[in-house]
């Protein structure tokens, strides 16, 4: 089964080293030319920067907003709680195509000009359900008695949150943040409709894939893969250290 899962990835990595511009067999030999092309291309650089900006802002906003909402929904029993939960999860029921189109129509009518900000808005609503799920499922397993204990010992609510709750839910928050980051990073449908004159990396890859592709796309993907691996592994190390 892992062979099936990884087969395309193996091909992608292999052909990133292809000597010619071909993406099909025969394989013509090893070369780093596509990696060099990627690094020297302002196109890819700008796109990576744009993708990073969008993803980072999305992550920041969603983590704050989503954690707050998660706490609100799990701690307090209030009227409309079910409705809020539904709204938080609802965007997951919509294909990116729909979200993108709805947003574009809306922006057109309200004469908002398209930019990376409009893309960020789209990504935000797209990722909310995933982060919310992670936070809520963590908070549901959270032992409130720990907070109680802190409160009994005289700590105020903010301090309790900072010293007790946050460190304990931090790993889940980080996991959620990672999920959100990768969702935003790879997103193409919503982005396609809501972007202005810029490009994000998936859009570049999308346009490249549709036209005359050369292995620089493979090179980028391999780099991203390696980068994400390194990133995830180091975060895990960090989290493990934190928990000491």
């Amino acid at each position: 089964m892992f062979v099936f899962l990884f087969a395309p990835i193996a091909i992608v990595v292999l052909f990133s080293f292809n000597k010619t511009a071909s993406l099909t067999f025969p394989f013509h030999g090893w070369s780093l030319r596509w990696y060099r092309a990627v690094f020297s291309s302002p196109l890819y650089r700008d796109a990576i920067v744009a993708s990073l900006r969008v993803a980072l802002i999305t992550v920041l906003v969603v983590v704050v907003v989503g954690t707050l909402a998660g706490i609100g929904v799990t701690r307090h029993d209030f009227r409309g709680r079910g409705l809020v939960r539904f709204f938080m999860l609802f965007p997951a029921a919509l294909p990116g195509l729909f979200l993108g189109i709805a947003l574009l129509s809306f922006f057109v009518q309200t004469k908002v000009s398209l930019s990376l900000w409009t893309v960020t808005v789209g990504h935000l609503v797209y990722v909310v359900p995933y982060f919310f799920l992670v936070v809520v499922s963590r908070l549901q397993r959270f032992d409130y008695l720990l907070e109680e204990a802190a409160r009994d010992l005289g700590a105020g609510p903010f301090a309790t949150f900072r010293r007790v709750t946050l460190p304990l839910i931090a790993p889940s928050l980080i996991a959620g943040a990672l999920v959100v980051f990768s969702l935003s990073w790879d997103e193409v449908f919503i982005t396609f409709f809501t972007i202005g004159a810029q490009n994000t990396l998936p859009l570049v890859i999308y346009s490249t894939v549709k036209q005359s592709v050369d292995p620089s796309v493979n090179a980028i993907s391999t780099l991203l893969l390696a980068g994400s691996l390194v990133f995830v592994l180091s975060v895990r190390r960090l989290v493990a250290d934190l928990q000491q």
Partner: protein
Amino acid sequence: MSDELSPASRFTRQELLRRSLVGGAAIGLAPAFLDSLGGVAAAATTEAASGTINFFSWQGYDLLDEAALKTWRKQNGVTIHSTYVNTHNDITAKFTSGGGKGIYNLSTYEAGYGPFYVGLGIPAPIDVSRVPNFKNAHPLFRTGTIAKKWWNFNGHQWALPFTWGIQAVNYASDKIKAPTSYFDLLKPSFKGKFGVTDDPVAAIVIGAHVTGVFRADSLYTPAQLKKIIAFWSSLKKNARLIVPSYGNMADLFASGEIVAATPGWAAVNSFAAAKGDKSVKHTIPKEGSGTFCDAFMIPNGAKDTDAVYAYINEAFTLEAQAQEAETLVQGAVCPKAVPLMNKETRALYPYKNLTQILTKSAPLEAIPTKVPKGYASFDDWNKAWERFKA
């Protein structure tokens, strides 16, 4: 290797290549004055042109690879940021949805789209006096009936045509002989071996030739349109796939998945060669084919047009035109640029017969606009093509 232009082939409206790669080239800022490059006949532009051009159209039309323009950009401190399109509809969508207004200051449209776009308020009138090198272009592109149909009407110049090309059939010359008729592709020997390109405008025009109902003004009755689509449907049954874009086509040839494809595009030959398959050629079957012609346009609401005007003007110098023809694998509009081309580019199209083809058999077709009752509209075309693909 040269394409034969049969007398029956006409200048017809064509949809363009689908290439899209988002590109951008930041060039250093070096203040300098423009040198008139290869100056013949045209007055040198003297506008101090530095600035940014935000380009939105087909890859290649931002002319990033032509040496003459590279030098010019460097000398004048002009930077180009490009976003490329997959289909001509992307241009329509971008400039009507409010997402493109004010952001991009240079785009293009294919001749047939002219009246349609002007109706939608997309292009801004062009001040031709700021593009003196346009005089280098063949009179057919500047004055006369053709020009008045697509680029210069209602008292304004809406766009400046700078390149054109023919779309018929690409084939792998090492595997098969050039098809002499579109109907060859229906033979069993071609079963599962060729592709139909997702290019409705090109396809319908070719289909009109094939079914014998071709009209210069692109007005077809629904019954005629049905017949055209039926032809393509029968092709589709014998085809391997619907090719999403011309770039894909090159890959498909290179990987040996197909041996032919239509509608085609001469430039695919060089794409495929870059991928290691030097055998792809382009041919025009006896029923004829379509020609497209693209023109620079400045979108309404564009800002900072100084650099744009200077750039366009530079694109019409003879040296630039020759290089454009070479890199785009298409035709140039300036006849005096032909001697400056290399052999292969010159051989692409019969420039000697240009006048005859452009005047006699070559009215540029439109997308049907102001369609009288009883004829199919552009909407109908698109809808019919959707059904064809389904």
